[in-house]
Structures are given as C-alpha cells and as structure tokens.
C-alpha cells in the first residue's frame, strides 16, 4: 500500500512540507506522536535513537530529549508545545539545548506544525510544516554533527530551486 510520502522545500529551504500516510487509525497515530515511550522507539532515525528526558504534553509544556548517535554522542533537543488541538494538531517551537534546560543559542530555531487527518480505510494522513527561523539553523545542524556527509543529489533540484520564486 502506498504511503504517499512527499517532501518539498521552498526556494530558500526555510520552509519544508512533509506528507505521509499511515495504515492505522488516527487515535493510534496520535498516541505514537504524544506518548514518550512510543516516541523513543521510532523518532530517532536509525542508527541514532531518541531518549526522552521530559515530556509535558500541554500548551507551554516541553518535550526534552536526546538524539543519541551510534557512538553514544548526545544532541539535546527541546521542543515547546505552542498549540495543541486534541487528536488533530500539534505545534511546537524547537531548539538545541545543553541537556539542563538552557538553550545553546538564543531564540527558537525552528517551528513545526503537525496536522492529523483521518482518511479512507481507517488510515491517517499526517501533514507537517517545518519553518526554520534563520539562515544559521541549517549550519547549526551541521555543526552539531547532526548530519554527516551525505550523497549529493542531481542538479535538477538546484535548477528548480533557482527557478522557483
């Protein structure tokens, strides 16, 4: 069954739209997104994993977790819930922090809005919009060792990037 995955960046790569469909009812998907025990099992992209330190799921509350590399290196992330519509949507602003509750740089680094929709066949569609606040965010990801060297993709995407307004 197709999962209709889509990943699109705007021309400045500051806003990213992600769509994905899951073969499960919305209640189950909502739980997977909000229960820290479940989140820890899938949020960390292999070979990294995620370990939740604090999950306070309410507006103004935070999800504090470490992204742990296979070498055991921890990158702390801190997401504050800015809006929650129960069973429908979650908005967060996120930043890197030192693991003790102090941001490693001032201000939020990126915002994420996640919307859940029931679709035919007892399935769920998830729409995510990530907005990066400033140009420096991407470099911070790189500098934090969040991503290591990758494979460059074709220039056709660059053409699109340059052509789009």
């Amino acid at each position, binding site marked *: 069954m197709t999962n209709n995955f889509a990943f699109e960046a705007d021309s400045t790569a500051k806003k990213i739209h992600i769509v994905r469909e899951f073969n499960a009812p919305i209640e189950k998907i909502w739980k997977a997104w909000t229960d820290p025990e479940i989140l820890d099992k899938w949020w960390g*992209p292999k070979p990294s994993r995620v370990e939740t330190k604090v999950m306070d799921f309410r507006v103004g509350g935070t999800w504090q977790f470490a992204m742990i590399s296979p070498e055991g290196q921890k990158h702390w992330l801190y997401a504050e819930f800015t809006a929650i519509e129960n069973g429908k949507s979650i908005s967060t602003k996120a930043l890197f922090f030192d693991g003790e509750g102090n941001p490693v740089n001032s201000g939020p680094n990126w915002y994420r809005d996640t919307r859940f929709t029931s679709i035919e066949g007892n399935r769920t569609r998830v729409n995510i919009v990530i907005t990066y606040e400033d140009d420096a965010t991407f470099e911070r990801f790189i500098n934090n060792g969040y991503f290591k060297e990758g494979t460059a993709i074709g220039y056709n995407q660059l053409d699109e990037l340059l052509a789009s307004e």
Partner: protein
Amino acid sequence: MRRDTFQAIADPTRRAILTLLVTGAMTPNAIAEHFDSSRQAVSKHIQILTECGVVTHTQTGREIHYHFNPEKMKEIDIWLEQLRKMWMDRFDQLDNLLNEL
C-alpha cells in the same frame, strides 16, 4: 556579517544571477545588462554571492569573470536530502511499530 548559502539564494535577483552564471562565466558588465537595476545594485549582489562562496572570480588582465561554484550550492541539496531521508526512516520505523501498538 556572516554569509551562507541560504543568504545567497534568499533574493530573487541573486537567484537570477546564479541562473545566468550556471550557463557560463560572465563579466560584471555582461551580468548587469540582464537587469534593470543599477550596476551598483547588481555589483552589490555579486559581492554577496562571492562572500557566500557560491560565486568565484578570475582575473585576466583588466577583465574579471564571475563563475558559478556548484560545490557550494551542493550544501543545500545535501542538507535537504539528509533531512528527507531522516523523515523517511523515521516514518518507516513508525510503520513497523504500528503493528505492535
């Protein structure tokens, strides 16, 4: 002021200059001819592109030619590709987990 690849492509004129330079190296005059803005404004954009590292220049006698530097632009592609893969992997893991929930 710090410069990065994102700043290079944040402005439509700069994107247009990059598109021109993808087709081949050009002198500042030749670039400026393509735009209604003043030569000075175009020069400023070229300067920013150079500072961002996406454009380099060579000098032959009194002539300066600006070149597109694709290596630098790859940073954005690499970043987006990494991010895309991260979300794909993450979602695949959730797919596998859903059977157990």
